[in-house]
């Protein structure tokens, strides 16, 4: 097929309209969410004292951090799906969850505490956190990558890592309702480690899946 013939063929396909990437990403995440929720309810479940925990601002702050991570990573993912886009000027979005976390840590430092700092940091659920967040992220990550395949990222590994952050943020939001460790020090340590694992897996998978 010579180039003129190819051009004629492409022009004949002009009527085809792909889904906008935002919609494709949303549908893929909605399809993957039940799998993650199934893992959550089968293995973990919401903590029994959730009603009283909601009055603890540090419990609520966990959701602020994880939701901020998910939202900013979604925004960056959509931006990076364009071929001419780079992280420059957009990467700072990802600092929002980190900023909330730093503010929460300083807030907790200023309050009188009954338990020592290291005890709060190590907590009781570190292993559960490190396995549950990646496990619940994985279906979401696969969904996110599937949706983002509509895009054309210049650096597929970077786009994949951001998709990892996105799915870890969503998974951690659900996981936070199970976890009884509410200290921002715990969140900063273990949630971050779990998120880093998912981001690395995302980079590896994205490097193949998001090439166009």
């Amino acid at each position, binding site marked *: 097929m010579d180039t003129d013939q*190819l051009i004629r*063929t492409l022009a004949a396909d002009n009527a085809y309209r792909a889904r906008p990437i935002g919609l494709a990403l949303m549908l893929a995440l909605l399809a993957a969410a039940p799998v993650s929720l199934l893992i959550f309810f089968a293995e973990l479940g919401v903590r029994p004292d959730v009603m009283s925990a909601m009055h603890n601002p540090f419990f609520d702050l966990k959701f602020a951090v994880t939701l901020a991570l998910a939202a900013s990573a979604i925004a960056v993912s959509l931006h990076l799906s364009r071929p*001419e886009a780079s992280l420059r000027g957009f990467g700072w979005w990802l600092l929002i969850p980190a900023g909330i976390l730093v503010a929460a840590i300083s807030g907790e430092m200023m309050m009188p505490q009954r338990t020592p700092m290291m005890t709060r940091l190590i907590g009781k659920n570190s292993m559960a956190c490190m396995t549950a967040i990646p496990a619940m992220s994985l279906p979401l990550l696969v969904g996110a990558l599937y949706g983002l395949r509509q895009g054309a990222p210049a650096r597929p590994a970077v786009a994949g890592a951001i998709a990892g952050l996105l799915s870890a943020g969503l998974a951690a939001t659900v996981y936070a309702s199970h976890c009884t460790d509410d200290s921002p020090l715990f969140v900063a340590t273990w949630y971050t480690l779990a998120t880093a694992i998912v981001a690395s897996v995302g980079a590896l998978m994205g490097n193949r899946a998001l090439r166009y």
Partner: protein
Amino acid sequence: MREREDEWTGLMRSAISGDDAAYHRLLKAITPVLRAAARRGLARAGQPVDQSEDIVQDILLAVHLKRQTWDTSAAFAPWLFAIARNKLIDALRRRGKRIFVNIDDFAETLPGETPEPTASPSEVSAQLQALPARQREVLQSIAVDSASIKDTAAKFSMTEGAVRVALHRGLASLTAKLRDR
């Protein structure tokens, strides 16, 4: 340069709002520029320039399948050149060369001359043979026999909708085969 790029942006906007002829003109207009850049990239990497047509076809397919990532309020050329650069780098990497491609390769370009017909079939043609029969027949009917969608539908006793689906799927799987080869 500026005028040419404004014209491209206008053509792409018309194309997206359903003007097939504008789309055809746009693809025709960008091809010589892409060809010249591909040749220069190959020459700089010490590769034979007669492979440029494969790269041009790769870029055209990517432009077509990734149109939805172009922001209609932005200029078309930077988007096009980003895709072209990416595809050129990919192609050179596949040939075992790691080189840097200069964005100016695309910006300041005199149209390259039309390629001499080569004996070896293009990579697109080779992958075409590996497509499911229906997709291949539809693609060949439109590409080689220059039949319209309507004529193709009549020829294979398909609906026009089915022809459109086969056409798009054929182009998408062709691109996937080229990527994963």
